[in-house]
């Protein structure tokens, strides 16, 4: 189909080309030009993705499937096919925004190897885009490994050496998961071959019943493991926790984009493609979700390191998304997506704040922090707005998300009313504990009086201020006008719920 200027190929491949141009030395070693060109490119890409989302907001199953004339391993291999739907386009916009804000912050944190950092950040963005928009499943798996590899390289070069074991662990886990996925996809492809069907996402959705149950189970499990490592689901959260904890402001996009990819896999493949299997796993998922709701937030309250506790808080909020998704209702899917987008934006803001605070105190331990409310008032105000969004105050995206999350279990017809009340209770408990955690942390960092601390008044750097401000504005925008996201999503939800027998 003709796409004109807003073309899916341009959307996906432009970060790769931009990254290659930087990597191959188009700007030689001029650090300022490299930094600025990468930053401006990412901003343009974000606007392009947004225009793409708004222009092709048709809510249909898949729009504008584009296939390149050559395969991945010649004509016998995977086809290079891309397609977009509402969820993938939304998540591309979200990832672009996250990467843009982090690149904005790289100005004061990445002081050497500019060429290397910015080109690999763009490669990572390319990998994410391919994963979100690929139609061919082998291409999807390959892109999954590519983006993890880019993340590994970035972390290897731009974080402390002490942390590299954890980084390796994440790479290994992903490698295992995607290898398992490829194996199961091969089996699926073998079955599809009998029916002369090509293995791609659309066919997987339409012809999932043709796959024998055991293979369906294995493929579903493989997707679930991939999603659980990235999202993360309780038990597999440690490596991504360490990545979150050890990344600076400039590398924040890695963990947040990984969450996004995990969520995408869960909704698109586990929920949509394998609806029957999802029903089978429903009890397990809801139990995992409910445990995670309390488990992660209790750990966040107990944790003494700022970024680690923030990571636990984010996990608990993602668990809320998972719980809502497991209700299998329109409200459930809507709340899951909205809650996820909301928490990604809030977590980005809080993550940046945590990094600025680290720069002031040079420690992650909350007990050694305090009394900076009057020293950096800009940061305190912006952080407080984000904390209100995290708690779920009205006029922020958090409130709408919480409202929908509370509504989702009530509308569910899958569970008995006893279980519905248990879910509501767990959600209420989670929200209250989140509020306790966020306020406690905020007070300790900004107000706690400590005479041993000698902090000089410091103004928030301009690029940091605008980065945080834009995050806050988006949170408020989504809180005031949630229908921007929800109107498109609701039709999409209707469509993906058709696959369920419940």
């Amino acid at each position, binding site marked *: 189909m003709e796409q004109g200027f807003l073309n899916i190929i341009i959307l996906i491949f432009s970060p790769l080309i931009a990254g290659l141009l930087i990597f191959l030395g188009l700007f030689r070693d001029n650090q300022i030009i490299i930094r600025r060109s990468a930053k401006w490119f990412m901003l343009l890409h974000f606007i392009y993705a947004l225009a793409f989302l708004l222009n092709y907001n048709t809510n249909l199953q898949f729009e504008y499937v584009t296939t390149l004339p050559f395969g991945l391993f010649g004509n016998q291999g995977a086809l290079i096919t891309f397609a977009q739907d509402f969820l993938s386009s939304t998540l591309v916009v979200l990832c672009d925004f996250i990467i843009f804000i982090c690149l904005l912050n790289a100005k004061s944190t990445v002081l050497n190897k500019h060429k290397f950092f910015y080109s690999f950040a763009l490669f990572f963005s390319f990998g994410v885009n391919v994963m979100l928009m690929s139609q061919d499943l082998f291409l999807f798996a390959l892109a999954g490994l590519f983006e993890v590899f880019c993340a590994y390289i970035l972390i290897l070069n731009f974080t402390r050496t002490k942390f590299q074991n954890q980084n390796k662990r994440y790479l290994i886990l992903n490698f295992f998961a995607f290898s398992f996925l490829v194996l199961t996809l091969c089996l699926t492809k073998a079955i599809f071959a009998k029916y002369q069907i090509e293995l791609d996402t659309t066919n997987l959705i339409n012809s999932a019943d043709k796959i024998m149950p055991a293979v369906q189970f294995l493929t579903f499990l493989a997707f679930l493991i991939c999603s659980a490592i990235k999202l993360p689901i309780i038990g597999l959260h440690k490596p991504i926790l360490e990545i979150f904890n050890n990344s600076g402001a400039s590398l924040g996009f890695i963990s947040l984009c990984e969450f996004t990819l995990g969520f995408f896999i869960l909704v698109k493949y586990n929920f949509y493609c394998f609806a029957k299997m999802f029903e089978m796993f429903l009890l397990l998922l809801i139990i995992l979700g409910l445990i995670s709701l309390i488990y992660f937030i209790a750990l966040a309250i*107990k944790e003494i390191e700022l970024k680690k506790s923030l990571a636990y808080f984010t996990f608990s909020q993602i668990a809320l998304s998972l719980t809502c998704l497991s209700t299998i209702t329109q409200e459930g899917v809507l709340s899951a997506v909205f809650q996820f987008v909301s928490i990604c934006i809030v977590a980005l803001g809080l993550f940046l704040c945590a990094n600025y605070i680290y720069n002031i105190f040079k420690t992650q331990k909350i007990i050694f922090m305090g009394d900076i409310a009057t020293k950096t008032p800009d940061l305190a105000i912006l952080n407080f707005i984000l904390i209100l969004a995290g708690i779920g105050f009205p006029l922020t995206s958090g*409130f709408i998300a919480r409202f929908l999350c509370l509504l989702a279990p009530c509308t569910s017809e899958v569970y008995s009313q006893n279980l519905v009340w248990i879910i509501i209770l767990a959600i209420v408990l989670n929200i209250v504990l989140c509020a306790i955690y966020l306020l406690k942390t905020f007070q300790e960092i900004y107000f706690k009086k400590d005479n041993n601390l000698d902090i000089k008044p410091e103004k928030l750097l301009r690029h940091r201020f605008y980065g945080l401000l834009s995050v806050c504005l988006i949170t408020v925008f989504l809180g005031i006008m949630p229908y921007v996201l929800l109107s498109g999503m609701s039709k999409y939800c209707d469509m993906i719920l058709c696959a369920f027998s419940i």
Partner: protein
Amino acid sequence: MIDILTCAYLLLGIPLFCAIALILIKLFYKKRTSRLYFFSSLGANFLTVILSLILLVYTITYQGFSLEDNNLICAINNILIYFGIYFDNLSCIFILALTFLFFIVNLFSYRYLCQNRQGFGRFYIYLNLFQFFSTCFIVSSNLIQSSAFLFFTTLLQYLFANFYFQKPKAQSDSKKVFQINISADVVILAASVAFLCFSMMAQNSQDIPTLGFNNINSLGLYSFASISPVFFIIICLMFVLASLIKSSQFPFISRTFCAANAPNPFFTIFLSPVILAEGLYLLIRLYPILNLAPFTFEIIKIAGIITAFIASFIALKENSIKSLISSFALVQTSVSLCLFGFRLVDCAVYYYICQTSSLMLIAYSLNALSLYSGGQENIRFLGGLREKLLPVAIFYLIGSISLCGFLFSGLWARISFENYMFNQGNFAFLIFSFVLTLLCAFYTFRVYFRIFEGEYRGTYEVQKQSKLMTFSLVLLSLLCILIGYILKNYSGILITMSSQDLTKSSVPLINIIGFIAAMTGYILAYRVYFTKELSSVKNITLRKICANHFGAEAFIEFKYKTLPEFLGKVFNIFEKYVLEFLYLIPSLITRILSYILCANKTGKISSRIFGAIFTIVILAIIIVIFYFKMGVNG
């Protein structure tokens, strides 16, 4: 000509515009601006008082009038969220009380802030924002809007309680205030959402209605019919629990005492219809639903009675002025809730408004006194101030006489509720009310004798009295004297929630017993604290038992601190020892594989079977992949 709807919107908008203007002044006008803040805020408040009076007159003129206007602000899927206003007699009374109190706070705070020289702009911005959010909460046309604005009032309460954030006590207490309030808000939101959902299911409609207060009765019936009674009761219990928390009832009494770190003029707002009665107001709005779950009224009654006794005993032993005012206020709120528990809604509103006017007078007299005596908050270090601060002593006495039910508004309030109890045959509660009257007289006059009689024990010179403060105290005393009479005369129009006749003829015997109880309290206080003939009585009080609110403090500490931390510790152990072990498995597999590969490469491997198997597996996978791919394309 401005119509009544515009008046109503102006009433809402003026504090918000004022707050925005003050923020702009704070940001862009760097000169000394304390008077500018004061006068703009005072002017805005004065306008709101006028507007609320107009609305009240309108209500009285057009009997049974109610004004509703809804504006769609957001549609979440098929749920329509409205910002609406709903003015009826109940909201008019509460709005008038609220605007009047904010006006008094404005008058009062100037001198206080001048003395403290801190946060002038911040205080007035918070104050106007608080007025806006409180007004929005009271005139909300639907339950979702109410619960949303409760979040904002919680935020403002936190900001005020943490106003002096340099003090560690203010930090810890404000945190407690926030935690307790936010729990209530979330529970209310959850209950509202559940109610919304079930009422939607019952109506079998695609368009989910927002929970309008004007048709809450029918919505309640729909929900009641559609779900099992147990779940309906759970929703009602959630509402009741949250409302009790909002009204600082047992075991959440500490919320009120924690708010004591707010600036003095504002602290009194905590105890007024603005905050402490949020729960009561919400319960009254939800009365039609709660009527379908009668069990909930029993809970309200029990919580009210326990809180009233605890607060009374705290008042008997407390020496801090703010704690004393808090406990006075808690007793009155609890009694109102008890009355609500007996389904005497009109009587509860009447009692609350009358007693609050007395309480505000007492609270502001004590605040003024504390300010004049150099910020002294402990009544043990005061005394003999009657001669030095005669007007304040008179205002305090007027408030005390009214609160104990000797004269003025308090008398009408006491008579109405004691007679209701008698007529309904609730003799147990009647005796309870006599005991409370006795205790009330004892503790209010204890404070009077401690502060105004005897020798002055303070170290600071008593300062000159402020005219603004005296003027505001005069206004409050007028309100305290007249409000009971006015409300009684217009009760047929203003207080008609459950069609109870407040002007019902009273039984003289009950009035006399009530008077004797109050008199006994006064005489006891006189003998113990003035003539000191019965000073040993002090030791017989239940102060030790009440010191921790019957363990409520420990409960709150457990719920908000110990339990999450304990869970965190347990989960931490799991993280450290169990999960870490599980993560070793992939690493071990990788190591084994790499060992086999290395051994195979260097030829150290004893059996070549490993190498052969590995190669065969890899080859098999590749063959399978290509075979099927060829199959598809071929």
